[in-house]
């Protein structure tokens, strides 16, 4: 945990208001997002109870499952959602799914995705084809959720905690209503007041419902539904009762997600968001092509070669994301300057023809910099110019006030010496730079060192092929 992070937490709890962690928005916002909030049956993530979704804050769609334990009722309700998800994933030009919190992402994208993508669409109790198709999309969306820097799936909690620091514990930030209380407490209230009020009055934003709601609303409606078997009117009545109760419970979470999107749109977009979004869209188009060709297959347990490849790809992406965010955002750079080897200050002296006294006698221009704050940088670390990424410097002498650096790359000959900063200019050097990664080893066959011995009852070949990745 960085010094800046601790400071911002202390400041938030003192002032009673969340403190910005960033000065830019580091995620893409779609003009046409699909927002989803929902509940599942307590202890049974594969049994959705109620879901609210839609592309407009004021016109949500909804389904409820009066008897969540019954497969046919479950599928009947899910199919309306599935149809719309498939339509959205097929037609949207700027696809973005927005959920309340990470727990909802894990439930909806991972669990629901897993049980719907292999569901039987033939046999005695066939499920609608759209459900299986939706399962493929949900699984793709889960992969995107796990991909560093992807904006194809957002959660309101992740977005807010990435951009704001509250005065409460990180685990308390998982409650979207309380988190929003800190960020937008409303007039006359502190963030702490607003968060406590929200915790006391707002129903959960999912995926777990409030136990008293289960007892008073869900259980009652279910019983009514069961007792009305054969009586269509009465069953309709039971369903309506549950719909009303679910709307009351989900409405606050639904509104909170849209409020979050509003807050996010108020932040200026960071420079690198557009290129990351282009990567998202490339993956999305590949996925859409596979979906159109009926080729959405996923492994249950990925092959070792696939998971190693994906891990390495995500690690490279994550490293790049971190560098891009820091270089895009002065406030994040300030956090780097407090804790990491980095330099910020004003140039007070330049020796453009300075020569290093090592064996090779290389020309290495020297800069003397008056520091804004003491640096942790040591001789062995390469630092890169924030404004001029071509410049690579290393520290030679440092006190708490003044540091001497030599330019080891980027301004060492006649054609590049114009990059040498002039006396009086303000400079920042950090260990971050955006690098082009060469393509790592491509996806290959799994070698003998990574092949598990057969254990008899294993049935390889079932639903294992094509699309790489984890659920």
């Amino acid at each position, binding site marked *: *945990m960085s*010094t800046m992070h*601790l400071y911002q937490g202390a400041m938030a709890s003192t002032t009673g208001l969340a403190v910005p962690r960033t000065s830019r928005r580091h995620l893409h916002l779609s003009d046409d997002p699909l927002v989803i909030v929902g509940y599942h049956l307590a202890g049974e993530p594969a049994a959705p109870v109620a879901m609210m979704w839609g592309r407009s804050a004021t016109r949500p769609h909804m389904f409820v499952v009066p008897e969540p334990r019954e497969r046919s009722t479950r599928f009947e309700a899910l199919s309306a959602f599935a149809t719309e998800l498939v339509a959205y994933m097929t037609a949207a030009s700027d696809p973005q799914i927005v959920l309340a919190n990470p727990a909802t992402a894990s439930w909806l994208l991972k669990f629901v995705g897993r049980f719907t993508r292999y569901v039987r669409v033939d046999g005695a109790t066939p499920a609608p084809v759209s459900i299986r198709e939706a399962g493929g999309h949900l699984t793709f969306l889960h992969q995107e959720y*796990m991909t*560093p820097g992807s904006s194809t799936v957002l959660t309101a909690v992740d977005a807010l905690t990435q951009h704001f620091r509250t005065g409460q514990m990180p685990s308390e930030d998982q409650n979207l209503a309380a988190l929003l209380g800190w960020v937008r407490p409303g007039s006359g209230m502190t963030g702490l007041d607003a968060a406590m009020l929200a915790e006391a009055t707002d129903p959960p934003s999912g995926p777990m419902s409030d136990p008293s709601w289960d007892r008073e609303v869900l259980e009652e409606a279910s019983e009514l539904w069961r007792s009305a078997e054969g009586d269509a009117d009465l069953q309709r009545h039971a369903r309506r009762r549950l719909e009303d109760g679910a709307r009351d419970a989900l409405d606050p979470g639904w509104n909170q997600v849209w409020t979050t999107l509003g807050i996010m749109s108020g932040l200026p977009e960071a420079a690198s968001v557009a290129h990351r979004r282009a990567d998202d869209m490339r993956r999305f188009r590949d996925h859409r092509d596979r979906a159109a060709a009926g080729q959405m297959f996923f492994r249950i*347990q*990925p092959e*070792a*070669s696939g*998971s*190693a490849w994906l*891990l*390495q790809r*995500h*690690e490279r992406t*994550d*490293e790049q994301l971190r560098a891009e965010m820091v270089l895009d955002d002065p406030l994040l750079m300030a956090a780097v300057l407090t*804790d990491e080897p980095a330099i910020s200050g004003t140039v007070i002296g330049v020796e453009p023809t300075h020569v290093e006294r090592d064996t090779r006698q290389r020309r290495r221009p020297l800069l003397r910099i008056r520091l804004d704050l003491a640096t*942790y940088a*040591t001789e062995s670390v390469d630092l890169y110019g924030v404004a001029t990424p071509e410049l690579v410097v290393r520290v030679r002498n440092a006190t708490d006030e003044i540091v001497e650096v030599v330019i080891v790359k980027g301004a060492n000959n006649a054609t590049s010496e114009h990059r040498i900063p002039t006396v009086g200019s303000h400079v920042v050097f950090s260990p971050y730079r955006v690098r082009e990664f060469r393509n790592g*080893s491509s996806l*290959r*066959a*799994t*070698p*003998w*060192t*990574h*092949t*598990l*011995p057969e254990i008899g009852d294993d049935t390889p070949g079932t639903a294992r092929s094509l699309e790489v990745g*984890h659920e």
Partner: protein
Amino acid sequence: MSESGSNFESLAASTAPRAAAESPVALSRLAIDRISSLLDASTPVVLVDSPPGAGKSTLVREMARRQAPHRRQVPIVVQTNAQADDMVASLVAEMNAGLGAKLRIGRLHASENYSPPPDLRVLPQVTYAMKIDDLAHTHIVIAPAMKWAFVDDIDNQWPFAIIDEVYQMRSDALQPIGRLMGSLLAVGDPGQIKPFTVLDEGQWRNLDISPIESAAATLLKTRPDTVRVALPVSWRLPAHSADLVSRAFYASSFVAGSAPEERSLTLPIGALTDPYDQAVRIAAAGGWAMVELPGGSAPKLDLEVADAVACTVLALVDGNVEVHDGGRTEPLHALRVAVGTAHTAQVDAVRRALREQCIALGRVVPAVEISTANRLQGREFDVTIVWHPLSGRTDPGRFHLDPGRMCVLLSRHRHACIIVGRAGILDQLLLTPPPAEYRAEAESDVDGWAAHRIVLDHLAGRRVGVEP
């Protein structure tokens, strides 16, 4: 004792009746010959567990020399360029001493930017190349795993290869090696810091074969016929340290190669007024000491601990300590002293504190090594000073309880180790349940929580209180 091995051969245990009579040299020789005969018998995977300072790299070089005459070429897979260069340097030194003098060594490296250390640049026995084809005439080829990953596996296959530091190697890095090599001698120290990812680990841990587990863990899963041999002797750790480190951090026990009387630290007789001098004396007498600040919780960057570490360094290097090591006696040199911490920021804080104290005293800053546990891995010193990873923490997590990190810090010394931290670490530990995400790795049965407790119990009678 490890459950993961019906195939685990602990030489110290299997030869127990004879062990008492056998010298450490004989025990060690027995293990090495056993490994050699397993390789001669074309065992698909031989996994060697080596405690700190057990001669792991020596074993790798010896096995490469023994196998080279029977093979077209023996590849050696290491984990970093520095390890590759060290391996080349040691092989050349041994060749100059007459061992495998006719062998030719290839050093495969990645980019134009690589340049060998100055003393290795022009050697008749060594060829440097970026392409494996340019090393066809060499008998032993050394490169980091990252470089081997770019060698074409269609044109190049080796029936046998050696991996060094297999417990630090991540499973995903073993895949290219599996594509190139047909059988393996995999050598490593199971007590070192485990590989990791900066990403959220949950997604990657729960797989049958996790890409972030160690290469050794994967081999044990995929090859039940792996023969696992433990090296029985630490040549580095002195007798009192070998016992503690073995008990706290290793599933398979080992002994010290030196007799207690072969190693000692002596100090001139003097009055004991300064608590830091007292700590140095306790460490000199029994191998271990703890410098203890008053209890309390503190941030990662606890500047009072940094100051106490600096005071300990000065007490040690200014204490006129004499080092007796196998018949040689020398004054303790600052270069043979290391300070180890868990975090980089702590390294910086210690450097700063030491510099300030030296300026105040008008003396030169002693050239002690100050580094994180990660960077101290594989290195050896006479005396080490360790910033206790749990000092002042109210929230020991997976990182801090990691037995590997603590084991590295406590196993770098030939003579003594002084630990610095706040009082009450044991109480904190006892009050803190192991974090939810904590779970022992498949290849080691060592529990970080229990290991810390064993160490703290051992330090109980060796504490010296200091005031900030």
